[in-house]
């Protein structure tokens, strides 16, 4: 019963008012989606993809791509592909006919595209696509306008949780849903709500930034409670013995389904795969929770270890990192073991590639391999332990406007990190 609108039909529907992109796509045989405004969303997505691609090429040209970069890029591209598949043809057309397809569309956006895109951490790559001068100006302008601040304020977990759940529940009420079906612009708003709130939701659940960074335990609760609430409409669709969304009567019949079957499938699509996605996120968060605790306790043990070691020597045996050959730097008081743990806590690995630190594969800043053997820090300071500590604590004072954030690292922490970095010969 598959029904794909013919090119002629589509052309007839959009040509009088269509723009170039939609026209081009429609010419390739894509159907119905153009008329409901999704064309603009698709176009925006396309622009985003190109932009990201430029950043990636630039990076590839500068230093080649690591497996890590490729993984992140793959996440970004597959996330975008999912988003494209969700709102583009042929699903867009099907989703006008079948309620279950419409729900599939929602799920692809909310638990497919959004978490993948968040996981890929696109911001650095998008920034990299800009020419360096524009990049600095953009960030300066953003800073001046307080954009970062506003953005991170908006990422308040309670607010995001409410917006995500409320958006989800509201659009699945029969009334608003019918409106979305009737008017293209409202339909677009529906999808935008889902996608944007989902981005914010996943940014908090699995992302790494934001002012209100939650602990993993809180994130677990954040994800699981939202899962329960967003499963509710699905459950009701399954349990309802009457059709709640009569808009799809004709469409379902075309596909050989009853309205009820269509609704049940829709509910189950929301309930089961949706629930499993949240469950997977919860499992990941749980493991991260324990790993995080492990790092932090090593750190605090190091911080508070008895000054007099009962047995001589400190075995620098840390799971996941092994600063072999750690030697004390003459006249410099820093603990490399603690430093390694600190590097994880401060999240240096988000931007730098640091040997022997799990997950430190960032490609925003320079890789820190063989740091002990380098001549300069940031291209301006001689590479000495004291300068390194200074740079770590006050990067913006040393090179104003550079990309390394001021993290207010206490002096001793900076010395310990330095001590670790100097084990990298």
């Amino acid at each position, binding site marked *: 019963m598959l029904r794909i609108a013919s090119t002629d039909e589509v052309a007839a529907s959009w040509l009088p008012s269509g723009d170039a992109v939609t026209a081009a796509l429609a010419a390739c045989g894509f159907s119905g989606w153009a008329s409901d405004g999704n064309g603009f969303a698709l176009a925006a997505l396309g622009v985003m993809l190109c932009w990201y691609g430029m950043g990636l090429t630039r990076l590839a040209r500068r230093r080649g791509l690591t497996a890590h970069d490729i993984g992140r890029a793959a996440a970004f591209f597959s996330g975008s592909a999912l988003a494209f598949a969700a709102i583009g043809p042929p699903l867009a057309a099907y989703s006008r006919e079948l309620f279950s397809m419409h729900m599939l569309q929602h799920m692809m956006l909310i638990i497919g595209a959004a978490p993948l895109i968040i996981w890929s951490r696109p911001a650095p790559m998008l920034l990299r696509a800009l020419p360096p001068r524009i990049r600095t100006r953009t960030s300066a302008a953003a800073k001046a306008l307080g954009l970062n601040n506003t953005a991170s304020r908006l990422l308040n977990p309670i607010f995001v949780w409410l917006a995500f759940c409320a958006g989800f529940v509201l659009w699945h009420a029969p009334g608003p849903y019918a409106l979305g079906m009737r008017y293209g612009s409202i339909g677009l708003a529906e999808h935008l709500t889902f996608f944007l709130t989902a981005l914010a939701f996943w940014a908090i659940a699995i992302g790494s930034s934001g002012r209100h960074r939650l602990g*993993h335990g809180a994130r677990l609760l954040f994800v699981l409670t939202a899962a329960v609430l967003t499963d509710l409409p699905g459950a009701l669709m399954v349990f309802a013995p009457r059709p709640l969304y009569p808009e799809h009567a004709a469409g379902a019949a075309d596909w050989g389904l009853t309205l009820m079957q269509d609704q049940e499938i829709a*509910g189950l699509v929301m309930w089961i795969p949706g629930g499993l996605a949240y469950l997977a996120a919860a499992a990941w968060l749980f493991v991260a929770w*324990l790993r995080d*605790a*492990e790092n*932090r306790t090593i750190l605090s043990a190091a911080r508070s270890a008895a000054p007099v070691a009962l047995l001589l020597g400190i*075995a620098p045996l840390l799971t996941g990192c092994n600063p072999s050959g750690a030697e004390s730097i003459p006249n410099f008081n820093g603990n490399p073991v603690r430093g390694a743990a600190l590097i994880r806590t401060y999240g240096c690995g988000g931007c730098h590639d640091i040997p022997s630190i799990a997950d430190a594969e960032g490609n925003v800043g320079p890789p820190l391999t063989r740091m002990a053997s380098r001549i300069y820090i940031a291209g301006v300071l001689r590479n000495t332990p004291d300068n390194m500590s200074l740079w770590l604590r006050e990067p913006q004072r040393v090179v104003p406007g550079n990309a390394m954030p001021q993290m207010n690292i206490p002096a001793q922490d900076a010395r310990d990190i330095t001590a670790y970095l100097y084990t990298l010969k």
Partner: protein
Amino acid sequence: MTTTELDRVPELAPRDYASPLASKLERLWATKPGLIGWLASVDHKEIGLRYIVTAFVFLLVGGVEALIFRIQLAWPNQHLLTPSQYDQLFSMHGATMILWYAFPVLTGFSVYLQPLVLGTRDMAMPRLNAFTYWVYLFSGLYLYVGLALGSAPNAGWFNYVPYASRPYNPGLNIDFYALANILLGVSTTLGSLNFVVTILHQRAPGMSINRMPILSWGTLTISVGNLFAMPSVTLAFFLLWLDRQFGTHFYSPPSGQPLLWQHLFWMWGHPWVYVIVLPALSMVSEALPVLCRRPLVGYTAVALATVLTMVLGFGVWLHHMFATGLPNIALAFFSAVSLFIVIPSAVSNFAWLATIWTGRPIFNTAFLFFVGFIIVFVIGGVSGFMTGSVPADWQLTDTYFVVAHLHYVLIGWNLFAVMGASYFWFPKMFGRMLDERLGRWNFWLMFIGFNVGFFPMHITGLLGMPRRIYTYPDGMGWDTLNLIITIGSYIMAAGMLLFVVNVFYGLKRGVIAGPNPWDAATLEWSTPSPPPPYNFVVIPTLASRTPLWEERLNEGPYRSQLSEGTPLDHGKEVLGTSSLDAQPNVILRMPEDSIVPLLLALVLTLLFAGLIVKAWWLVIACLAVGLALQLAWLWPRVELRERRP
């Protein structure tokens, strides 16, 4: 000590259970002598033991109920019991075992052990702890008053409407069940709340979340689960009571929805299945490695499996309702999910196997029980897997196959683990060992009796014997099997009796255990047996999951500090720590013993008595007295640093 002291740097003292410091703590923490002192005690060890003893009494009572109706079922066409008596007995048996034994016994172990394994001196809310115990006890008595009056529940433990609604069940039977359940729900919820706070807020310094014993993961997981699940059943019973007594229209057709009951009940009921097994599994995960002389294999995997089982448990309640006429498409999805819930259990199972394989086991009674446990765990698991498949379940459900399955899960997963745990922790609780020879008899009688008694139920089930029938005709192919089942149940009962004998023997004559008879790894074994009222003379600081094995395992650069710590002797004090890293962040003042919890529990029970006889004046009086007691309980106290001095 001055009353204005608001901040303090904790002192340091050596660990010495014979020092003046110890006697000072003893004075501060000990339960006062005399009956009133005993009734007012808020010591978690005291309360934990009361929980365990009470739960075992309910186990014996529930067991006797089963033994009675097993005689009725041993042969076809028996008339020992009338249908009405049979219905009350099997309903009471189910309710007693699932609600008044299986969970409370685990609560008892948790109440006793959690503060000890966490390295603190009491539960976070000691008075609440006492209160939850009393409410649990009274709710059980309340239910049994119903039995004494001939009005015991008679609609099975899951009490389906409309049979449980008034037109078909006009007596007070169901009202007793409903109200007793609500009362028990109060106890369970508050108890869970207490565990969550204790585990998240009172771990010994350094016991970060990743170093928590699996035992605590079990309790924490099910306590959080309870917080979310309990309201469902409490509400279900409350609405039923409204339907029965005030003519509301929730469950009875035409405008009521009979299936709403099943949804609400199983939304709780399925998580509950995990609630009454996960702590038992975590006791095995805790004790088995000690007896295998190695740390548990796959700590993170087992902890994750525990949590995921609980979470998944909330999503699969529909598999109790496969035959209710749900849409076929939904059945396919839920069948898949129900089958896959096996995976987390498989994780634990293989972790235990690996622990045994790579360890050097000690063959004692506790170990035997754990081995028996693993065997029945697998049998109970695979029969669950069979019922997860929808078409098969259409045949299997509500037959004796399901009865076999649920007994393998509840007795197997719960009772065998509890028995093993009893042998394992009895020396800690009483300072004496249980007898090994009696123990082996105990194990073999129970293990053989259990399998002889319950395995044939799978077969009678496959031969079509429906559950909950008070008798059956001959010629159905069930006769011999039922006789075997009855014999098995009596063998198992004999084994249980031997355990009781062993406990009394152990209390009087058992070998003196010493602080750490099993050479175990965790904190509870670092204090004397039985532990003093204050648990730890100084609060330990941890650097690993296995503080007492660190030197021998030689892992990681840091060692726990057990020989020196803060004594916290300025009154009844414990250390509050941060929930993730267990960094000390507050010194908490603990309340003194108090009779108020008992009084409040009595008032609450009286209120429920008022509800069942509809004596509104009594209800209102109880509410007023209860509120006054609450106010007294919660009045901000200077000595707890809750208000300005």
